[in-house]
């Protein structure tokens, strides 16, 4: 048993560069993917509705195994994954590729695959990483080369359109509407739908002094995270538009607008914040 196992292991431990190199970063509780050659960068979140999880609506076919954006890779190419994490230890598991590598903050682990069959492959996080460890699946879509090239082009166009949105003038209702979607995707796991968080671990946003009256600190927390707490920096996860709209949403929702200064944040505020300070 030891001999074939040792031979296989030696083949697995090939960390030479792939045709496509993708950095995988684990967050509580989502994955970020960076295509190093093509400058593509996106997050992967669970899309299963919380109503399905809490048995209020029937469960779909891919319950807990469906995400907003799949990792797209071409068939027949050697893909190398560079796996790390931003907060706690996660583990990136794709059973059909025989890859399970821990995503550890401060370390970069590598794994590689060559997929022959196009299709949609599903995996999961397998290292206990906190409350929603069971709710951060991995989905990889394997497509023919030409389809892959088209996808890369489309991602680049989308990035360009996003830049245009940042320049636009936004109204309060536009921001709030967009912000609610961002909130439900990124914030709700900790701060809950009603903004009240979980006592002792995740702070209450409804009526919080920072959310009510301190716009500058509010932006700073989302951009930098909070040292020593679960709150991470969202600076790389959210575009300027999404960042501004989600802050505006929390400052408008749950009666916060009436109780506080009601100031909104527009995308240009975030651009301003990101400029190097003297």
């Amino acid at each position, binding site marked *: 048993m030891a001999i074939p196992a040792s031979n296989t*292991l030696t083949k697995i431990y090939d960390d030479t560069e792939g045709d496509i190199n993708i950095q995988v970063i684990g967050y509580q509780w989502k994955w970020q993917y960076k295509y190093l050659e093509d400058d593509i960068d996106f997050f992967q979140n669970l899309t299963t509705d919380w109503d399905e999880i809490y048995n209020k609506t029937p*469960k779909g076919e891919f*319950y807990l195994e469906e995400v907003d954006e799949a990792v797209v890779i071409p068939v027949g190419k050697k893909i190398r994954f560079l796996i790390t994490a931003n*907060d706690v230890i996660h583990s990136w598991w794709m059973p059909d590729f*025989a890859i*399970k590598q821990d995503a550890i903050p401060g370390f970069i*682990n590598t794994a590689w695959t060559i997929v022959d069959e196009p299709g949609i492959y599903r995996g999961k996080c397998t290292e206990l990483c906190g409350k929603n460890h069971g709710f951060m699946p991995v989905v990889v879509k394997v497509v023919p080369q030409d389809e892959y090239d088209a996808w890369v082009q489309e991602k680049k166009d989308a990035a360009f359109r996003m830049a245009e949105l940042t320049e636009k003038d936004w109204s309060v209702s536009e921001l709030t509407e967009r912000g609610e979607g961002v909130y439900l995707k990124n914030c709700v796991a900790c701060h809950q739908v009603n903004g009240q968080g979980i006592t002792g671990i995740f702070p209450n946003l409804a009526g919080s002094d920072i959310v009510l009256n301190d716009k500058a600190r509010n932006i700073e927390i989302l951009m930098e995270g909070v040292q020593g707490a679960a709150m991470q920096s969202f600076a790389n996860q959210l575009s300027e538009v999404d960042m501004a709209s989600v802050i505006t949403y929390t400052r408008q929702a749950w009666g916060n607008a009436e109780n506080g200064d009601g100031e909104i944040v527009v995308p240009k505020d975030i651009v301003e914040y990101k400029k190097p300070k003297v």
Partner: protein
Amino acid sequence: MSAVIESHNHDDHHHGPAKGLTRWLYTTNHKDIGSLYLWFSFAMFLIGGVMALVIRAELFQPGMQIVEPEFYNQMLTLHGLIMVFGAVMPAFVGLANWLVPMMVGAPDMALPRMNNLSFWILPFAFFILLSSLFMEGGAPNFGWTFYAPLSTTYAPPSVTFFIFAVHIMGASSIMGSINVIVTIMNMRAPGMTLMKMPLFVWSWLITAYLLIAVMPVLAGAVTMMLMDIHFGTSFFNAAGGGDPVLFQHIFWFFGHPEVYIMILPAFGIASHIIETFSRKQLFGYASMVWAMASIAILSFVVWAHHMFTVGLPLAAELFFMWATMLIAVPTGVKVFNWVTTMFKGSITYETPMLFAIAFVVLFTIGGFSGLMLAITPADFQYHDTYFVVAHFHYVLVPGSIFSIMAAVYYWIPKWTGNMYDERLGKLHFWLSFIGVNVTFFPQHFIGLAGMPRRIPDYALQFADWNMISTVGAFLFGASQILFLFIVLKTVMGGKKATSEVWEGSRGLEWTVESPAPYHTFTTPPKVN
């Protein structure tokens, strides 16, 4: 010399057990402390068991039904900690207290006051641990392996209480082990050489050395966590130049010997019971001793097989894979010896024997799945799935816990002077046996099908086997109430037991009357 012995005898007439609560608080008697340990561990077994049932109830169907994910994580953490440190380890220490002095022909443990201390700090440790459930932010929620930084930077505030509790448990274990070692080394009856010691004594001698070697490592790990949390160090914090993987190395350097601490005494127990009910001398006594010693030594060089996916260098992966496979050799020797002891024996199937045979068979299944996990490239798929959960529950529940139950049935006539109810004992065995297998065997399948461990909810393809597993867990849980009833009934009364209790029993503890007098072997027996 004879004058000394006489004065001891003289003392005994005045020192029966004290009356009331102080008997238990101040006791330095190894039998009293043994009983305290055993009752304490049974209470913890029930508490940890209820937590396991909360987990299984939540997993009965996909979707969140009973608890929130946050509380689910607290349950799985406390279940693991309580079962390891509160149920299995104190139960073995309790058995050691009752049996080691009687088996080696000593009047008591060597350090009776320390014995009292090592027990009485335990309830405080678990009071602290369980009280964290009612603290702001909830109880520890990072799994019993408490990997940093989830257990440091990202932990609830109660983690500090958890660290303190672990320190107390460690101190208790170390004191218990020192006591066992000193008793065995200094207080054996004249003529009992090391290679004539009963195997349970041998197994505990080795276990005690393992405990002394690794509990300080655990204490070091939790102290480093404490420093990271409160004093601004960065042992495990990558942002401060620390190393989260270092934590896993330290933890498993403790953790792997720890799992053998939980199984070696079981080897001793099974050897005695199989020998008795096969009415044959144990086959291969010396090889049993050497097998246990080599398992103990190997346990120090295999820790990283818990960490095959953290990105170790190839050379390390190969070394730990080969070292782990080596463990199968001494373990195989032991199983072979037990089977050979039974071969052509005049076997009867009383309850302790049923538990012991189930121990051998089911522990071997757990051993085989362990061998599968040792193969690194395959482990990349099994790691952190329900296959691992099935594996370690097979070695811990029908392994350690069945052996403890077997020991209780086997020695309880000696402890109480009464025979247990054989019919109820067999019923308890069969319910437990079926319960354990229905609970844990399906977990092999859901693990291989791709269900990760420690998740509160799962994709739909895992639903059927999870449901069956939950049914088995409730059956197993309920049958332990029967166990409590049987033990209480035996303590209260029952058919009187003889000194030998069992037809084929061997060993010094069977030469004293049943129930064993409060003080035994005040004059050392002679062993040929």
